[in-house]
């Protein structure tokens, strides 16, 4: 049998390269109106009065009074209004949509709306905890009672913007009682369910269709539910097609970003070994909670990194501040923690005068070890050989030694990391309950009916390939259209590195059944997710298997730092990943390159901050992502380590490839400047500060 990993060309290459693929802004409908958003100009307070100018015919203002259902965006907590009623809790909070045929006129209307506010003192300090979690492992805090000493450090991470090149957007239209939205989204059913609640419509009267998505990275996970609800409310009322597309500045200022985090660690040290770790993770949720609690729990679960630590006492808080709400971004809490724990273990070794590499290798997690929540790493862990490979290919030891010379300003850094695949905890079993369908058509074609979105990560290619392989038919005979909720079942959101492992696993099961029945003319196979019996998780107390499987990785990054300008130049990267089994090698390598680029960008380049609640980087000129000149040659090696419940053994890879980038580049810079790094991004300004002031 031929190896499934052997690459084929992606199925959507032709339309994307030729520019004929239809992204949301490329779709025009007859009589289509445009919508723009009226936003608050204050950070916190109340609206006293809004004075609208006379609104001309065929122009509309849609606000909270027009919401037919519940004025809440259905995410997890009921704390985000679709349009504010009067309370303002962050700058540029949406108040209304102004809609009409001519943008010039809409802008004129927006400019002449007067709003009177009562301003209140905004909260930017991380004090108001709205979600807090705690869990222990082993002896928990008591292990500190018999420690020789305690080593403590604090780490900090900044905002990160998804910076998909295609901004957020939807087009909506009404057809009788039915409201339809087409959009650049990751999760058609998140939007659909949010719409049902907002419109108070029957499920059959709400339809959500995915257009070609120009990048998402988590940024189109929950945020589209907000603007989708706004637009749907307008569409249902006005009954004309309406387009709501953000321009870059609006997108940068108001959409969700990666949560800034502060992580405090104490390690109980006995006989030069880590006996236990106590940690507190604080993340800035912004003005509404959204997915912040889930992000926090993933961060906390990753607290021991790729290592096994027997005793843990982990607490975490989501703080509410009067800033733009933060949300999903590839990695989902893990990048913050993976940076912190990787630096902390390195710094402990340095404090103990032990070679950090040997120290880290000695505590690596092994098969059958207990996870941070006393679950079990059931599958083999290949880290020792993966590390060996990364070190050999990068000539790590020789470089590390040579670069210890403080005058040459070169450095090499290596991170070890994992990512829990799929939803955290019992999410898959209790909340998502994924369903997939496979339809056999008369003409011997098979159609995949799932809600998974191809946002560039190659789902269309890998799923068609998967089904074609199992059915032993040509890939041309497997159909996979962009999800449309009228036709596909809810296979869950396209997030959490779950698509191939969970949804693909179900599709593979369906395909196997279809193969048995292939002689039949026309039929549908449906499969629903069933958690492997051995996976048990106590959500409340954080006990058990938080994930069904884990992917693993090693990143090596080499840098040069300028003595004069403190700028960092990436020289090369080497990566080794265990994602179970690649359904298509080229697709996984593409994820590897792009994930690492975002990970290292997060580590040294991408600066975003707010000043009194206002995001300072409001365009792609100010928010710096890597160009082709910044990125170096990247070398990647994939290890097979099949997971029994993934199709052909596949686990998650989308997020894995991002989480190790920041610690690897930070360690490389540490090596180059001989100073310790405690926060990312490691900007030239920070490097200057360290070189001029910090201890080694």
């Amino acid at each position, binding site marked *: 049998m031929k190896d499934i990993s052997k690459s084929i060309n992606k199925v959507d290459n032709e339309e994307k390269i030729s520019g004929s693929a239809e992204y949301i802004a490329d779709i025009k409908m007859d009589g289509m109106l445009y919508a*723009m958003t009226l936003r608050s100009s204050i950070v916190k307070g109340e609206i006293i009065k809004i004075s609208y100018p006379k609104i001309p015919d065929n122009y509309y203002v849609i606000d909270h009074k027009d919401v037919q259902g519940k004025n809440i965006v259905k995410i997890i907590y009921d704390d985000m209004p679709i349009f504010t009623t009067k309370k303002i809790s962050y700058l540029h909070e949406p108040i209304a949509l102004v809609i009409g045929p001519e*943008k*010039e006129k809409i*802008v004129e209307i927006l400019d002449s709306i007067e709003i009177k506010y009562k301003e209140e003192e905004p909260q930017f300090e991380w004090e108001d905890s709205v979600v807090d979690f705690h869990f222990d492992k082993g002896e928990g805090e008591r292990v500190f009672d018999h420690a020789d000493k305690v080593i403590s450090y604090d780490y900090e991470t900044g905002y990160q913007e998804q910076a998909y090149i295609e901004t957020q957007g939807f087009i909506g239209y009404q057809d009788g009682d039915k409201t339809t939205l087409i959009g650049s989204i990751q999760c058609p059913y998140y939007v659909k369910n949010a719409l049902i609640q907002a419109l108070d419509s029957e499920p059959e009267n709400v339809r959500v269709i995915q257009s070609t998505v120009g990048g998402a990275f988590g940024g189109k996970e929950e945020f589209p539910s907000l603007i989708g609800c706004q637009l749907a409310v307008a569409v249902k009322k006005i009954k004309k097609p309406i387009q709501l*597309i953000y*321009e870059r500045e609006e997108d940068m200022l108001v959409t969700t970003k990666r949560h800034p985090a502060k992580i405090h660690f104490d390690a109980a040290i006995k006989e030069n070994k880590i006996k236990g770790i106590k940690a507190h993770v604080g993340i800035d949720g912004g003005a509404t909670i959204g997915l912040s609690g889930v992000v926090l729990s993933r961060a906390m679960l990753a607290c021991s990194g790729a290592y096994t630590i027997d005793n843990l006492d982990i607490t975490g808080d989501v703080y509410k501040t009067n800033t733009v709400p933060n949300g999903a971004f590839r990695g989902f809490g893990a990048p913050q923690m993976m940076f912190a724990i990787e630096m902390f273990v390195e710094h402990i070794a340095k404090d103990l005068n032990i070679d950090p590499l040997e120290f880290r290798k000695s505590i690596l997690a092994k098969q059958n070890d207990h996870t941070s929540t006393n679950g079990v790493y059931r599958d083999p862990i290949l880290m020792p050989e993966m590390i060996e490979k990364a070190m050999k290919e990068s000539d790590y030891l020789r470089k590390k030694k040579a670069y210890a010379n403080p005058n040459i300003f070169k450095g090499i850094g290596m991170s070890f990391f994992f990512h829990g695949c799929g939803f955290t905890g019992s999410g898959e079993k209790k909340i998502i309950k994924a369903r997939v369908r496979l339809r056999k058509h008369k003409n011997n074609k098979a159609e995949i009916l799932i809600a998974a979105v191809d946002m560039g990560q190659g789902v269309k290619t890998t799923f068609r390939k998967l089904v074609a392989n199992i059915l032993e038919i040509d890939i041309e005979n497997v159909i996979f259209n962009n999800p449309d909720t009228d036709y596909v079942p809810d296979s869950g959101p396209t997030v959490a590195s779950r698509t191939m492992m969970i949804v693909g696993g179900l599709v593979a099961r369906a395909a196997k059944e279809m193969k048995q029945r292939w002689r039949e003319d026309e039929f549908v196979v449906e499969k629903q997710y069933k958690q492997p019996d051995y996976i048990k998780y106590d959500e409340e107390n954080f006990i058990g298997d938080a994930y069904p499987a884990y992917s693993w990785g090693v990143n090596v990054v080499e840098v040069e730092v300028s*003595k*004069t*300008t*403190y*700028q960092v*130049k990436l020289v090369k990267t080497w990566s080794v990943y265990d994602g179970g089994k690649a359904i298509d090698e080229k697709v996984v390598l593409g994820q590897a390159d792009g994930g690492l680029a975002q990970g290292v960008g997060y580590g040294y*380049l991408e*600066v975003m*901050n707010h000043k009194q609640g206002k995001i*300072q*980087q409001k365009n792609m*000129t*100010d928010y*710096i992502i*890597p*160009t082709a*000149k*910044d990125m170096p040659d990247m070398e990647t090696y994939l290890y097979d380590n099949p997971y029994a419940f993934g199709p052909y053994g596949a686990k998650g890879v989308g997020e894995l490839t991002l989480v190790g980038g920041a610690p690897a580049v930070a360690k490389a810079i540490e090596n180059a400047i001989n100073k310790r790094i405690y926060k990312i991004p490691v900007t*030239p*300004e920070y490097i*200057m500060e360290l070189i*001029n002031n910090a201890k080694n």
Partner: protein
Amino acid sequence: MVDGLIAKSLNEALEALDNKEYQIVAGGTDMLIQNRSHSGMNIDYKKDVLYINLIDELDFIKVDEKNLYIGANTRLETILESKLVPQILRDVVIEMASPGIRHTATLAGNIGNASPAGDSLVVLYLLDCELEIKSLTKTRKVLLKDFITGVRKIALNKNELITKLIIPKINLTDCYFHKVGPRLSDAISKLSFACGYSVENSIIKDLRVAFGAVYVTVVRSREVEGKFIGQSVNDLKANLDDIINAYEPLIKPIDDQRSNRVYRKNVAINLLREFIENIKED
């Protein structure tokens, strides 16, 4: 709605300018961004626009024994590719703009825009660039440093147009440009630095230093340079602290979303130090 007039000849442009006040637009790569409105809407210019990008007679690079002449409409890409242009100017062009920008943007446009972070200005100051400015009735010349009077402020009368850049031929032993951007290409500078010198018989005959984005305009001081011209290379290096002290008060950067004043100042001085330390005796 404002008007847009496309001039195809210099005379047409000057006549138009003589008639009324226009916003002059060359490549448009800065002006379109500064006057953006919304996708699909007209560009939000505040006054009528005169487009000069298609005036072919202003697209040239020429030299004589004394000077290099660059037409106001000469694209950055043409400058980059021309062997007549000093390397330092070609270096700044490749560092300051991506190919898409280089194919339409012009140096005269950069000058007219007078951004404090404009990289090309730093090198043009260093090279003592002069401008030829024309109106329908008059041609005048002005030193670039006298032309730029502040952040986005220039000494151009409303009936005038920059027609060419005049760059004196000078013989420097070495000169270079150093851009300090937030990434390695295609980004607005945190600061920039240009420098050059010539040495004869171990004596400094010429010494030039210019800093960008550390003050409202490019910082170049003939006075400070003059103090050190005539010294031997060894003396100059021994006087490094004096040089730094002389420049220190001139470097007054700000904090903004791109960087902070401490970094800008520190790095400006590091670059100055590096330049002086690397000066070679003949």
